[in-house]
């Protein structure tokens, strides 16, 4: 089906979220909708899906104007939507979830019975009553899931419980849900935000299949690489307006500039690292996971002042547990030395005081309190230190003044420091955390997924701030599952796989080799007879860490620090 949006305008008070947006999506086309957070992408799609009513403009499907006043109308018109946050019932099976709201129903009936000479005929409810009381036809639900699953390569078991499925599969369930309702125009709202690189590839394969079978797909994203990889056409919107339509072979730089409205540095420029002594020394750190098994298995590494160590790995290989253990949020064995002082037994507060800045992976959950003001969030882990507090008494005026300064320095876009942090966009929330953690003198900065879900402009900002810290002599650990980020920042790359560091490599290691390491192709104890890598490469990897250290030439490095 052909979809056309004509002059769609949506205002919220004085703010124009969508300003006369025109867009045509042909059948069998993957159209990317590219824009920064807050550009109006989601608003536009909510208009298309009937969640919002446009103030002006019309929607045409196959050149006929349609009125979409609710998601039900949208589904009726053949539009399906997969939201950023899935709308699934965790304790239901896949089949139950996809048929929810459109359950296949058969007539309620009691089977016929013959007892001796008495014959009770089959009793069934009149057909007219079936709409309000019928039998759930689970078999039909399962069969349709299986059939769709096979046709498009979803690989989804209709009987699996949704809560047991990985995120990537849950997303496929959402897609099946839309397809079962005969959606021929699919809207995917930031579908890759929650996916690992591998899952993203799987999703793209499915998207191509759907396109080839004639579905139109609108793919909302702010990630340039993904858009270039999958889209047939790219529509860029900025501040509610369509600013350009481009083919997918448009350069990164051009797309980024279109999105942000100015030229953007996609990769921060950084000088060579000037290394000083070891700031963080981790020896034989093991961390139990949620289920009693070890999530981190005897990891050892060190980070020197003025160096960024990137910890690369696919999500869920122990990174979360590693960071939490380093912050004292999770019990662990082994030793952690900060500037030669053993902090293995220190509480989180003591570690913060000792000079660790921490940007947690989950900013909504761990980094911020949504219901607190920006000012309060800016002191969330320093609230009890001068000048913000003297003894038990807090100094609201000092907190407010510092907040005003930080908001200016770190370009947090907020109407006031007394605005609630939860009302800020993701990028601005992250800037609040970055401002809080980087504005005090640190010895070590531990940043986990520091730019997840951020747009190009914010990524540029956060990256340059992190490099600035490095240049001031802070030891930096970046944990990321985004290869771009690892390459952009790292002076050394440690690869984590199943809770172990399987290699420490130089920052110029080719992407496919890094990918192989992240996929566990070479594990630490199998380096010699590694299957995926040529042996010299594996050798190199093992050697690299000391090599990098030597470059800076602070004399021979102490290989084994005594870890009493």
């Amino acid at each position, binding site marked *: 089906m052909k979809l056309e949006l004509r002059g769609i305008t949506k205002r919220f008070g004085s703010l124009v979220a969508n300003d006369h947006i025109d867009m045509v999506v042909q059948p069998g086309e993957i159209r990317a909708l590219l824009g920064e957070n807050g550009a109006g992408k989601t608003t536009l799609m909510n208009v298309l899906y009937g969640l919002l009513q446009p103030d002006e403009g019309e929607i045409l499907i196959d050149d006929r104007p349609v009125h979409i006043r609710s998601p039900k109308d949208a589904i009726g018109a053949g539009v399906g939507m997969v939201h950023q946050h899935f709308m699934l019932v965790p304790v239901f099976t896949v089949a139950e979830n996809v048929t929810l709201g459109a359950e296949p129903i058969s007539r309620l009936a009691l089977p016929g019975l013959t007892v001796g000479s008495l014959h009770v005929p089959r009793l069934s409810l009149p057909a007219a009553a079936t709409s309000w009381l019928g039998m759930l036809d689970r078999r039909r639900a399962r069969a349709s899931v299986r059939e769709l699953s096979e046709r498009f390569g979803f690989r989804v078991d209709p009987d699996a419980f949704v809560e047991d499925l990985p995120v990537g599969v849950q997303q496929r369930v959402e897609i099946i849900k839309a397809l079962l309702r005969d959606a021929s125009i699919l809207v995917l709202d930031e579908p890759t935000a929650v996916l690992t690189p591998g899952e993203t590839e799987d999703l793209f394969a499915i998207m191509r299949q759907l396109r080839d079978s004639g579905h139109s797909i609108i793919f909302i994203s702010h990630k340039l690489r993904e858009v270039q990889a999958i889209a047939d056409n790219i529509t860029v919107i900025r*501040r509610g307006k369509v600013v350009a339509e481009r083919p997918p072979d448009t350069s990164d730089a051009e797309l980024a500039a279109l999105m942000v409205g100015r030229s953007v540095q996609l990769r921060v420029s950084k000088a060579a690292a000037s290394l000083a002594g070891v700031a963080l020394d981790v020896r034989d750190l093991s961390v139990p996971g949620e289920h009693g098994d070890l999530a981190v298995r005897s990891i050892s590494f060190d980070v020197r002042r003025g160096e960024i160590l990137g910890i690369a790995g696919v999500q869920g290989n122990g990174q979360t547990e590693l960071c939490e253990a380093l912050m004292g949020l999770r019990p662990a064995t082994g030793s952690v030395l900060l500037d030669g002082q053993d902090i293995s037994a220190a509480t989180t507060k003591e570690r913060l005081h000792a000079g660790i800045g921490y940007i947690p992976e989950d900013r909504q959950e761990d980094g911020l309190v949504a219901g*607190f003001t920006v000012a309060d969030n800016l002191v969330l882990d320093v609230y009890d230190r001068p000048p913000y507090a003297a003894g038990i008494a807090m100094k609201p005026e000092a907190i407010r003044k510092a907040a005003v300064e930080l908001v200016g320095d770190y370009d947090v876009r*907020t109407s*006031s420091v007394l605005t609630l942090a939860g009302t800020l966009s993701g990028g601005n929330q992250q800037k609040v955390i970055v401002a809080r953690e980087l504005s005090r003198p640190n010895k070590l900065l531990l940043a986990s997924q520091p730019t997840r879900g951020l747009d190009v402009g914010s990524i540029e900002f956060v990256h340059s701030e992190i490099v600035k810290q490095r240049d001031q002599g802070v030891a930096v650990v970046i944990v990321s599952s985004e290869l771009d980020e690892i390459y952009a920042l790292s002076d050394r790359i440690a690869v984590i796989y199943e809770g172990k560091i399987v290699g420490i490599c130089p920052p110029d290691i080719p992407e496919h080799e890094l990918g192989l390491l992240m996929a566990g192709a070479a594990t630490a104890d199998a380096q010699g007879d590694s299957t995926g890598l040529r042996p010299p490469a594996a050798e190199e990897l093992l050697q690299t860490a000391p090599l990098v250290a030597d470059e800076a030439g602070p004399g021979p490095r102490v290989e084994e620090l005594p870890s009493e």
Partner: protein
Amino acid sequence: MSETPVAAPDPVPAAADAVAAGPGQRGDSPGPATPRGRLTGAVLIQAITQGSSAVITILAIFLALVVGGVLIVFSDPVVTRAWSSLFTHPGYALGQTWDAVSFAYTQMFEGAILNPSTVSAALHGGSVAAIFYPLSSTCAQATPLILTGLSVAIAFRAGLFNIGAAGQWVGGAVVATWLGFGVSLPPVIHVIVCLIGAFVGGGVIGWFVGLLKARTGAHEVIVTIMLNYVMYDLLSYLLSHQGMLQKPKQTNQIAPFIASNANLPHVGGPPPQVGIGFLIAVAAALGVAWLLSRTTTGFEFRTVGASPSAARTGGINVERSWVLVMLLAGGLAGLSAATVIQGTNTQLTFNSYGTYGPDGITVALLGRAKPIGVVLAGLLFGALHVGGTYVEAATLGQVPANIVQVLEGLIVLFVAAPALIRATFRLRATAGTGMEAVAKGWNA
């Protein structure tokens, strides 16, 4: 002190971001986010049209009074008879209805707040003090409610739902009573010792709950509910055994009167006066307000309440906060008992605890877990209690005093369902009045 909020370099993207975050996520904070420069009138209008939490509360009280009026009508046989001839004499039926309802509410007002006849009497040489008699009764009734309300509210701000104010009340009452009759001390000191004892008695019970939660993860709602029964039975045991708390030569569950030295004095001359207990309650509210907004401990409580994981990441000892806040909550409930035992009753009986605990929950809810709100809510409930008794007497039992319990229930019901109020008064729907968080907190 500069009042100017930070000017965003470019306000448009910020606003756009807020919208993109979803209209539903915009916090409702007309107070702090409103630039001071704006006209107060505009702010007021916005508060009314969008239904700020204060407006919702006032409308909820109004709606409860309307529904209460319907109940008064139904409980009055004269009016119901008048209604049977509604179609033949509609004016009569409506007039009777108005008379019944307005009489009941006028009586309630006169009993609880101000009786105009005492004013005119005072003008003609009568007692001036009599004017303040209703208000002083209201304050006396409000005192324990404010304190148990604070107990629930402070725990709530740290994310804990303290159902156990009743049990902690008993803990405080037992210690205050024992110190009250069992020890002999000079006047002022005896009062203070009893108050501290009550705080400790309640605090220990609260502390135990906090400890269980911190150490074992036991849910405070379950623990406090169960501890309430333990405390009720403990009280019953203590009051029915000679040598414990039972009054000598008594078979009833009743304790001796506390020493007169331990009685909370009144200020303001001959009755009616304001009890010291009320001043203690107000001081406690101010103390809690200061603790929550101006101290690191309060900041920790609020952070733990808003997001335990963010608190932990920020280096806050979440478990320690739980224990501490439950200790304070228990102490406040204990103080509530002290104001009753040392103030109005001067004697502990098996049912002294009344409904102070559960009422504390509704007071805290109505006051939105804010100390000032709790004081106001406590005063409202105190006034309703006094007015209820008064109206029952004035109508010779026609309007039962229990009507005020219905009113209390309705007010809380309407406050807890802001959508209902919005629909009734056609307020523009905006997100968040603060109650959603409270509602979420019930089973958090």
